[in-house]
């Protein structure tokens, strides 16, 4: 699914160059449930943004579904991303004036699904996650856990092959956290590849594979030798 070769990311700000990632080599297979863990500032988010085809590495090579991304232009990356990669963050990032239904609908709209199809797909998902009663609510009328569930549904509504999550439980209490993690496990059981960044060992322990990072380096990788 994802393979990186010597990925380096350097941020240049006001004359200071900050190396956020140095020589990252990872290999994530289809159906894996991977966590990237490490202390704050070690480069987890940066790595996710690169394998999510959002940011560009400074050097090194990146393969997504065996396609060489390294030289792809912005709009080609966007096209590859569309429907194939879902994102979840600490913040739910819902659009306030759209209802739950409309928020989840967004990816389908940009993939030009017909309205009827959209209704079918979304209602089915909402039913499955026992959230159909929230369909016409606005984000402001939901608690944090519900908001995060909506953002997860939005991320997976197109049945993407890869789900990236950056500290997805960072705002939740332990009950909410466990519910979300259960949802992730369920999605993984259905075959979705998941990469989850977290600074919490409690969470990384629940994934099949953990990539440990420190100061821009991968420290241990259960599968891949450095």
């Amino acid at each position: 699914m994802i393979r990186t070769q010597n990925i380096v990311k350097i941020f240049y700000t006001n004359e200071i160059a900050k190396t956020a990632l140095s020589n990252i080599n990872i290999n994530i297979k289809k159906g894996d449930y991977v966590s990237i863990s490490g202390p704050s500032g070690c480069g987890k988010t940066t790595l996710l943004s690169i394998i999510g085809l959002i940011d560009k590495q400074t050097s090194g090579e990146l393969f997504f579904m065996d396609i060489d991304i390294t030289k792809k232009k912005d709009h080609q990356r966007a096209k590859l991303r569309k429907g194939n990669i879902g994102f979840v963050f600490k913040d739910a990032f819902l659009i306030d004036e759209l209802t739950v239904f409309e928020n989840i609908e967004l990816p389908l709209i940009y993939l030009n699904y017909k309205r009827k199809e959209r209704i079918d797909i979304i209602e089915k998902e909402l039913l499955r996650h026992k959230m159909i009663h929230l369909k016409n609510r606005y984000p402001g009328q939901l608690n944090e856990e519900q908001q995060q569930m909506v953002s997860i549904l939005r991320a997976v509504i197109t049945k993407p092959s890869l789900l990236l999550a950056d500290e997805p439980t960072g705002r939740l209490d332990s009950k909410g956290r466990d519910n979300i993690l259960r949802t992730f496990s369920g999605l993984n059981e259905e075959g979705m590849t998941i990469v989850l960044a977290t600074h919490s060992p409690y969470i990384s322990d629940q994934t099949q594979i953990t990539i440990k990072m420190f100061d821009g380096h991968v420290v241990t990788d259960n599968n891949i030798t450095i």
Partner: protein
Amino acid sequence: MNTLHYIRAAVKSLLRDKLYSATNIAGLALGIGLSIIILLLIKYELSYDSGIKGSKNIYRLTTRGESPDGIQTVSNALTPLPLSGLLRTFHETEATTRLIPGANKLIKYNSASLKQSRFFFADPSFFNVFELRIIKGSVEQLNKPGNVVITKTLADKYFKGTNPVGKKINRDGIKYNIIAVSEDMPEASHFHFDLIASISTIEKILNYNRKILDKLEHNWKSLVCYTYVKVKPKADLRIFEKHLNKKARLFEERSKPENKTTTATSQVNTTFHFHLQPIRSIHLHSKLDSELEPLSNPFRILIFISITIFILLIISINFINITTAEPSKRLRDAAIRKLNGARSYHIALQIFTEAFIISASATILGLVLAELMIPAFNKLFNLSLKLSQIQGLQDIGMVIFITFIIGIISGGYPAKFFSGIDPVNIFRNRFKLNKSSFIMRGFIIAGQVFVLMFLSVLTAGIWQQLNFISERYPGFNKKNLLIIDRAYTIKQNYEDFKQEIKHIKGVVNVSAATSVPGEGYMKNIFSYRGINPPKKTPVNVNFVDCDYLQTMQLRLMKGSFLNCETKDSMGIILNSTAIKELEIKKPLEEHIETANSQNKSRKFNILGVVGDYNYEPLDKKTEPLGLVLLCKHNFFRYIIIRVEDRKDKRTLSAIRNTWNKYSDNEPLESFFLADRLNDNYKEDSRMLTALMIFTLFSFFISVLGFISYASFLIEYKDKKISLMKTLGIPDNYILRNLIGSFGKYILIGVSLSIPTALMIIRIWLRNFAYTEHVSLLNLLILITLVAGTGIASISYQYFRIVFKKNYHYLTKR
């Protein structure tokens, strides 16, 4: 495409922030309302004389005259009487008519007087040239003396409910028979009439005196009537004009021996050329003497068009200001959409949908506002604009086009601005726009400053010039001068009348003249033989009585004024310009000559020299002038009365009573000279008023814009500001920093607008001989005002936000 989604999302986004949407729509609507009114105004101005059927083929003949030495002396809308007859012989002519304005005499129907009625004489073919609908009766008998056609408006006013056809009215002792009621001239016409009598009535008025009549009818030298011609659609006008002039010359030559006019006022030695002037061009482009009604000029259209463009620009900028004032929420939404598969154009489409919804609702509201504001504008501009004048596909298309353009302009930058967001921002949860968008935003505010400053300077410039003209000393005392027009009714009783007026308490002096300042003058070529070669120049001649100097309070520079006792009709008073132009060294010992109809020269002894005074409209450069004593047989038009106080009702009513005693019930037509002189600037004053309104409007919009920009700037620099606050840097230092960022763009706007506005003012000032430019002080005041408003806005926003936010969160972390 999921059109519905875009519309729904747009509506929801607009409903989310109601204050934002309301401000946006209100600003746009007001601007659109104003623009619609101006567009109506422009449309009205451009539509002049095109409301008449076949107006494209209707021409007015105008007269240009040159003296034998090629000096242009006549440029007049009037023509000789026989011209129309000559036109009739050309195959290019479809119809032609003469039109002679009648004097303002009392018209009576039974005992009611038809007040302020515009009375004309015309040929029966008038209604073939101007194809007005005949509502009642028939105009066929308009060739018979005493027959008259009245307009529907007059009929409705004085013949309520009854059929006016067949009724008799009385004017100046002559009975007129109403033969028809016609539709009125369209409002946007260069002349209007209430009654048109047959031109043959003039014979009756002149008691069928053949001698006078023949002289009139065959006289190619005196300009008495307006001549109109409707040409055949495919006529070659150049050839037509050429042949016409050739033939006219021939007739002119032939008629010469019969011409016995001896007064210096006839244009004896002048050769006339006749020109075809499309009536549609008269309102904006004609610059002739003896126009029937005041005209406009293309500069005004230019001003109005640029005002419209500026208004649309300024309201679109306002939209941008408000939309981007606090951009992070929108940037965040755009990033979320992008992360979920939206491309930049999806975001742009979303913003444009919002802009179009706003501009469409603003247009609807704007039309309502226009409807509400039109009465006030009509009053101001003395017009009768109606919203219903927006009609036809073209106009509706125009309104839709404006809506569309506003949507494009106002949506354009925000669309670019928000759609450019990189979704990577989501990973950092910080939504920051890029530097180029920030700079672009600065230039937009500079554009707003430009428009505001441009309008302000233009307004100031026009105001200053009009003020200057009305305050300037014109070389005579223009205050408290009462002028009686058409005073010739008094004729031989003038001396008695004058004595009686002089004895009224409050009357300072009385005089008579053929012309008064602001009116037209007779031009004659005078030559001075005291130098070699002799010097020739056209001189305006005014026949005045001996009290003219004192009444007008002119300055006598040399010699003495015309003397009543000596009755020396061969004496002349020249103004300084005439002396200079004729290059006369010692004027009091010299004489000048002019040729009369027999080409015999007449000598005039120079008795004195008066200082230059503005005897033409105040803004015209003083030309050579000669004052000659009125003799018994000279025709004078005006009586000039200097009163002590124009507000003294008793003096004025005493004058009126005396007039009634001597004038045989002719209505008194009088005005104060200062008012009449100011009337020349009425259109300019109206333009000034309109400009002031729009400047004020743009000022308010700009204040909104400055406040929005200030909050935008503060949000952009949020991190820097919080850092500085944490480091304990005092507010005034941070504020100065912010003002510096803002001031840069104010400076750009101001420095570009001032030269542009000054250039436009300079073009406008070309209409004036005496000009005053915008003073440095006024410019400084305006700059201070604009810059001050900008600084005040940013200070206000800064302290508001500093108080709201606690800038210590950085230290806490």
